[in-house]
């Protein structure tokens, strides 16, 4: 390899020499120049650093930053969605528990109300019935009394009428004024006996 390089160098010098001595046969730039196969070229080194840094910055700007941002955004969004879902589930659970407790208390209350209503209704109905019974008893008693009074009245009336009738019949029979009081007494006793019969 090194021999190769030496010949290359020697050749280049010869060409340069020829070019100077004779007319310019060809431009020196036409001749491609090469570095050694194993060489450390400072300018290439500097270019390498610069290129790597530039590529690093460009890739960061055009690939890593936007893609990373997109991925993190999506990750955050998913996390947010999960936490939101968790939160609304908790809310729903709390609401459900609340409703259930309210519902059961309402049920209890309704039972209480119904029980109370039933009890008061029973009491009332019993009261009403008792009242009615009392009233009815009063009415019956009154009616009995009235009937009794009526009966007595009717008896008295009948008695009076009969005594009057008897008196008039007797007076008509005997055509003669008799002692009314005495006769009346007589008749009354008669009617009394009749009544007993």
């Amino acid at each position, binding site marked *: 390899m090194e021999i190769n390089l030496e010949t290359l160098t020697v050749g280049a010098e010869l060409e340069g020499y020829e070019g100077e001595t004779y007319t310019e046969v060809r431009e020196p730039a036409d001749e491609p120049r090469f570095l050694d196969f194993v060489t450390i070229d400072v300018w290439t080194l500097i270019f390498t650093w610069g290129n790597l840094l530039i590529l690093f910055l460009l890739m960061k700007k*055009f690939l890593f930053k*936007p893609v990373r941002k997109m991925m993190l955004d999506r990750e955050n969004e998913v996390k947010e969605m999960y936490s939101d879902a968790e939160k609304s589930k908790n809310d729903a659970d709390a609401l459900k528990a609340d409703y259930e407790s309210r519902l059961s208390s309402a049920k209890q209350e309704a039972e209480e109300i119904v029980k109370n209503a039933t009890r008061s209704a029973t009491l009332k109905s019993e009261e009403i019935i008792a009242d009615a019974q009392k009233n009815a008893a009063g009415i019956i008693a009154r009616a009995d009394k009235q009937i009794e009074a009526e009966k007595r009245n009717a008896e008295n009336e009948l008695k009076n009428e009969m005594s009057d009738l008897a008196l008039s019949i007797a007076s008509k029979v005997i055509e003669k004024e008799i002692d009314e009081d005495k006769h009346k007494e007589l008749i009354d006793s008669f009617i009394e006996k009749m009544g007993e019969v």
Partner: protein
Amino acid sequence: MNGPKIMFEIPIFGGIPVTETVTNTWIIMAFIVVLCIWLTHGMKKVPSGKQVIAEKIVGMLYNMVESTMGKGYISFAPYIGALFTLSMLGSLSSLLGMRPLTADLSTTLGWALMTFVMVQANNIRCNGVKGWLKGFVEPVPFLLPINIVGEIANPISMSFRHFGNIAAGMVITSLMYGALASLSAVLLQWIPNAFISSIPIFQLGIPAVLSIYFDLFTSFLQAYIICMLTMVFVSSAGSEEAARGE
């Protein structure tokens, strides 16, 4: 076999030679940047198509950096990504007939020196200047020269490993082409037609078999190795806690 061709000179500082390596680097960089812009163009919350690929690549790289170096060094991922892409595509460019960047010792030495500087900087950042200097006389002061040689040997071995693999592949491939051309010339010389007998028919297809190893496999492997070594050297130079405390 020649080194990289000098494409042109920038006429300052007495002429800065711009070699084939540098111009090829520019071409590859342009390709990478265009690829990056295309991959991330029109990204959506719900990924599809090329965005899946971009996210896969970025995610894999971040995972690799995190598992190798630790969470505190996650900001190294873009650098490692740039180094890996440039190294791999730089070596693979030989498939397109370009001179691979990594067949130039200046390139691989540049990368290795970059790693060297980062290792020392990270060591100083995590342990302080005193701790860094103290590291050279540990475990016993007697080992000082060996420690120094060990530090300096890292970039040298890294750069020569990468350069040697790719350059050797290039040399062997060209030797193979030469050998196959001679073989065709010998075996086809009975054909009277000079044109037909001059066709190097054996160059067709056979080098591709070698190319699978020397171009595809080695390119990927060396890119992986230089990135791995960079990550391991940098992260082992300082503690992860110190890096996270930054």
